[in-house]
């Protein structure tokens, strides 16, 4: 190696001193060894903590190990290069004050992120609703959470927004209820409608027998009797229940000749018993019209 570096054709020492070359080799070795090790540790931590606790703990632990290791590596490299940390840290103090004012939002997000981790309102892979956004949580990071919506959009929501707003976790519990609004005509026998709806729920392949389906008499509507048809399903089948049960109700009501009404408007001229009065303003003979049209 030494011979090669000092050979008559090429000598690296013409360009760089022996000491600097040795430092460079050390820095390269440090980077070549530590970076793959850190990546390996991140992967292991991610897998270990995901398996033992929850996926988002795995992600956080992986990042914590990786970035701590990275900082230590950078400090070591700087030490090897002879860059003193003291002036950097002093400079960092002044810059820190300036940055502190400029990065209030980021700090707020980081603190909100810590609250999110402690409170655990959701985990990675949960389906949540924030404002008008519904999607699957991809990651919970220091500044924000990342969501994949069902139409495959990537949404980044700052942690502060999550802390300040109402968040609904749709998959926290293993079962969910679907509430269908069913309207039937006033002439229908509600007892019979109830039996039919319970039968539909029993035959639906996604609904659960228990908790039992419920039919709640909701209201005497303007043109219908409104019922609340409540069916339970495992969280994974909730959408399937929503999609199938209403279709099955419609089909069954058609078979059983149960009327699903639409709004009716009746026009009366002053009194419900009297027909609407029609007054003829001008009378014209049919023969006259035909004669005009042929001319």
């Amino acid at each position, binding site marked *: 190696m030494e011979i090669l570096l000092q050979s008559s054709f090429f000598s690296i020492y013409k360009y760089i001193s022996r000491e600097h070359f040795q430092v460079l080799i050390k820095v390269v070795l440090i980077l070549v060894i530590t970076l793959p090790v850190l990546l390996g540790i991140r992967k292991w931590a991610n897998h270990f903590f995901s398996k033992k606790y929850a996926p988002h703990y795995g992600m956080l632990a992986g990042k914590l190990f990786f970035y701590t290791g990275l900082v230590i590596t950078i400090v070591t490299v700087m030490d090897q290069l002879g860059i003193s940390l003291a002036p950097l840290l002093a400079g960092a103090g002044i810059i820190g004050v300036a940055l502190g004012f400029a990065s209030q939002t980021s700090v707020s997000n980081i603190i909100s992120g810590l609250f999110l981790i402690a409170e655990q309102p959701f985990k990675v892979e949960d389906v949540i609703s924030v404002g008008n956004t519904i999607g699957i949580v991809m990651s919970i990071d220091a500044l924000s959470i990342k969501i994949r919506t069902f139409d495959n959009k990537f949404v980044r929501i700052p942690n502060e927004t999550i802390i300040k707003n109402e968040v609904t976790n749709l998959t926290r519990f293993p079962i969910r209820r679907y509430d269908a609004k069913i309207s039937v005509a006033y002439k229908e026998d509600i007892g019979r409608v109830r039996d039919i709806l319970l039968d539909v729920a029993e035959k639906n392949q996604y609904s*659960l027998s*228990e*908790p039992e389906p419920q039919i709640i008499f909701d209201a005497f509507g303007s043109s219908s009797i409104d019922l609340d048809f409540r069916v339970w399903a495992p969280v994974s089948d909730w959408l399937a229940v929503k999609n199938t049960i209403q279709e099955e109700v419609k089909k069954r009501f058609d078979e059983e000749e149960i009327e699903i009404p639409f709004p009716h408007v009746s026009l009366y001229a002053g009194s419900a018993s009297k027909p609407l009065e029609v007054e003829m303003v001008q009378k014209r003979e049919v023969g006259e019209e035909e004669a005009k049209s042929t001319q």
Partner: protein
Amino acid sequence: MDNKFWGEVSLQESKIQYFSLGDLHLWLRFQDEEIWIAHGYSGELIGTIQDKKPPKDVEWSRWAMKVVSGDIRIQPVFPDLPLVVNSEYPLKVSPETQIQIYTRIPVWIRIEQAKTDYQLTELPAVKLSRTWFGTPIEGELCYHAMTRARRDLSKIDKKSYLVTCPIFVSNKSMEELNFERFCFRVERLSIYEHNDEFWADETRIIYHGENLNSDIIMAGKLPEGIQKKQLLTKPRKEIKKSLATRTFKRFFQTHF
């Protein structure tokens, strides 16, 4: 029992074989070195059910195997989830009383390639609705079944798709046990064939009170007259000497 249904079946090239059990209709064939399976259920199939080919709305599933063979094995197995068994007529067991009841559960069929024991599919002979056993916050998904909780089996018809499960209930509490429904963890039971009927090993439920877990003992104890050599199917999960678990209480509160 339809003996043709169970055991090894040799599928012939491009010839469809038809079987039915309970509500299940099954069509099998061996074609282009693949095993083809189609199935449907009474009440769901449209039109007349023919032996020679499935109705148009039924789709075939195909399996390409490492070992090319049309020999398959059809076995009865217990459902893949526990069952919440509801008693048709609620049975009340007084304190410090022991009773023996029988409940009959519809089997599933497991289809394997005979040479490799590779499992192709499992299908229920009768489709059971699903139910939840537990609270809205935690619990387990189960199938829902009805039973008459019979004390005597001599007067009932044999049905080839049902497995008879003897259950010994011991009420060791000082309160009445309302045997209206219970969670039956069938995944730890084996299936035996005896007198052309399917039988499961005995389940012992020891009830200690409403707020305590019941002891479930599924130790593989065989019903009278049945021997180990009559075993058809091993349990899905390993047999444990005793299992302390919720069996009777449902936990549900009124919901709005």
